[in-house]
């Protein structure tokens, strides 16, 4: 069950921030035939978009590094825990990406609501 306690406004603002380039989460996409393309992550929104299903490629993500980054940079141990839980499921890599996408998307919506951010706006609060 995906349950996340809605964050406070202050916590939400931190969750929605864009971190410095130096603090980014290394990630990529497999896009044949071009190959593996850099797609570093600097915000919760970007993480959600990286993991969102699309027909022309697969997200490239180290789940353990992603969980650690969520905890360290976004200050969200609860989401990090759910990321670790989804990553530990005995299913395919793609299904684990989809599971993580679900909890990340949930947290993104919660954070936007708490921060008073317009969900139609891609920019962070």
């Amino acid at each position, binding site marked *: 069950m995906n349950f996340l306690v809605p964050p406070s406004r202050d916590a939400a603002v931190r969750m929605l921030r864009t971190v410095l380039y*130096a603090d980014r989460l290394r990630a990529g996409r497999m896009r044949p035939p*071009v190959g593996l393309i850099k797609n*570093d992550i600097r915000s919760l929104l970007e993480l959600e978009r990286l993991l969102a299903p699309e*027909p022309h490629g697969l997200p490239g993500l180290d789940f353990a590094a992603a969980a650690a980054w969520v905890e360290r940079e976004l200050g969200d141990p609860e989401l990090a825990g759910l990321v670790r839980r989804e990553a530990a499921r005995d299913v395919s890599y*793609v299904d684990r990406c989809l599971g993580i996408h679900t909890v990340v998307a949930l947290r993104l919506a919660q954070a936007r609501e708490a921060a008073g951010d317009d969900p139609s706006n891609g920019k962070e609060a």
Partner: protein
Amino acid sequence: MIQHGYAGKILRLDLTTRTVSTIDTAKYRRWGGGHGLGSALFWDLCKDKTITDGRHPANVCIVATSPFCGTIVPSGGGRSEVVGVGVGQDPVNWFTRSGFGGRFSTMLKYAGWDAVVIEGKADKPVWVDIRNRKVTIRDASTLWGKDTWATQIDIWNRVGVPRGVKNRWKDINDTVDDAMSAATDQGRTTQKPAVLTIGPAGENQTAGGCLLHDAGNGAGQGGFGAVWGSKNLKAISVLGTGSITVADPTALLKARVVMKQKYSSDVDRPDFHAWTKLGGPPKPLFMTASPTEDRRPQACQGCTSGCRARFSVGYGNESTCQETAWYIAAIRRVAKSAQEVSEVNMKAADIVQKYGFNSFLFQTGLHWLEHLHEIGEMGPGKRIPSSLPWEKYGTLEFAETLVHALSHRQDIGKDLAEGWVQAARKWGREKDLHDGTLQFSYWGMAEHGYDPRAELEWGYGSILGDRDCNEHCFNVIFTNVNAAFAYAIPMRLEAKELVDIVAGKLSPYAKGRPEVLDFGDGNMYSEAVAQLVRWHRHYTRFWKQSALLCDLKWPEFYNTNAPGNEGASGSSDAGEQVFWNAVTGDRLTFEDGVELGRRIWNLDNAIWTLQGRHRDMVHFAPYVYETKYEKGELFPFYMWPCRDEKGEWAYTDVMGRALDKKKFDQWKTIFYGLEGWDPKTGWPTRKTLEKMDMAFVADGLQAAGRLGAEG
């Protein structure tokens, strides 16, 4: 004598004197076509092969076709090869190559020409108007400054049927001498000319300058747009009404039918997950969701694939593959919806096409620029002065501002115009080449997406050559295997079966030697891998870059549509040589083609040697040796067939390692030895060259004091 598959003449343009002459193709028949033809012409016609800047007036640029162009050879009829000394590489602008698809090569042959040789430098901008055998060098003062699309429309209006006018027949032969063949060429057409042009990036002689044709066909790597810009050559337009003779039309049709019936997916029961290069259903290769489902497939002439698309929305048309990926990560940061991601992405692709700018430089370079901005190195009043609006990063406005600046040598474009690695040094960012912040792996060119620390044949082949090789021969293994791993679906071919099938195709050096495909830690500097790299270099130099079979479709090692999972390559019913012989009337074997590739590869190495190459220069960017390819850096695994300690084959993760510089250097000695080159210098030897009937090359190297010592 009829030369089946050939037009028979090569067009020679001297832009300095504005004169036109011809060369009989027969003189160069031994080189096949495409790259081989181009390298041989360069060897003969470039008076100073020590030049190391493609913008030097002595540079000779050749655009060449192959016997396949204009025929129905599957995924082989519509490509052109470009060769000459390039722009933007580091530390030397080597004699290099690029290629593009579309209909330029076919139109060139229908006009009666197998290649165009461009020499000298015009004193003012010119364009070349080819209408069958009638060739005119025209004033381009009103074209100069226009983007690639406006230029083409302008020329279409002048040469062909003006836009908006109902199609009508046009007579283009003034006299019978203009016809390619008086018997078969009536000189009438409804077609618009095929135009190859440069945009602002080429006019301003930047490293990103491309050659562009139609909407989405570009020769990007090598900076040939800058080469044309330096020669004041804006465009070549060609309109042809002739035809090409095929030696054995029945055999050609038969092989084409075999390709459809034996190797291609059943249209009634398509297998979308088949492991095949040639046999898959047509599929556009844009890298985001389609902006609309209202689209039509678009392909190079004669191709079965249709990797491009035309959309009803009016943007992104015919852009495909890399140029539809260069800006995605940035767009995702700010776009409000997936639809907006697609729209901005495809419009960003349009921008690089219109400016004639090589978006491949952004593949890893854009992240580096963003990094420099963010750490305060780049910006208004900063150490690297720039007024680029980074606050708008991810928007279409930023994309156009950036591409405009880089295409016009404005802002940071002033420094990047000479090459990105050169700019890194000028900006005091040498350390970025060591820690991988700037991942330009080979000769100052961007890493492609198949990291040399994991996929050895791509990396080794690139650094032993002249550029990022961009030869997708083997990395379909990566794609097939890793997708199956990611989805946890059964492998269509287990590792042992796969390597056995592939090795069966690697004649002559590695046939039946599956160990050549083992990229495990214990085999990565082996004689076996050297044999694989040799095969890859030689195969591609002929079958891919001279015969001009499409890189994305050939070779086909395995095909799960076909009996025994055997792909078409080298097969007796639809192999490369079957098509070659049907078109030309030759009796070439598959191995003969690989051997021809070896000759061409040796000729190229002789040119590089004259340009100043020495084996000590043949090294990757420092980060390849000094940093590991970390798991999760781009993807969490890179599965490849490897042997375990018991010799059993299994798909194994080859991430998490760096290359060892000393061991790679020792591996080069093995490679040079197998090639018959001087291992101390990497230069070709007389003995090796004479065995290939290339004593004239040995003479040239000896005269320059750069002939390799015999072992």
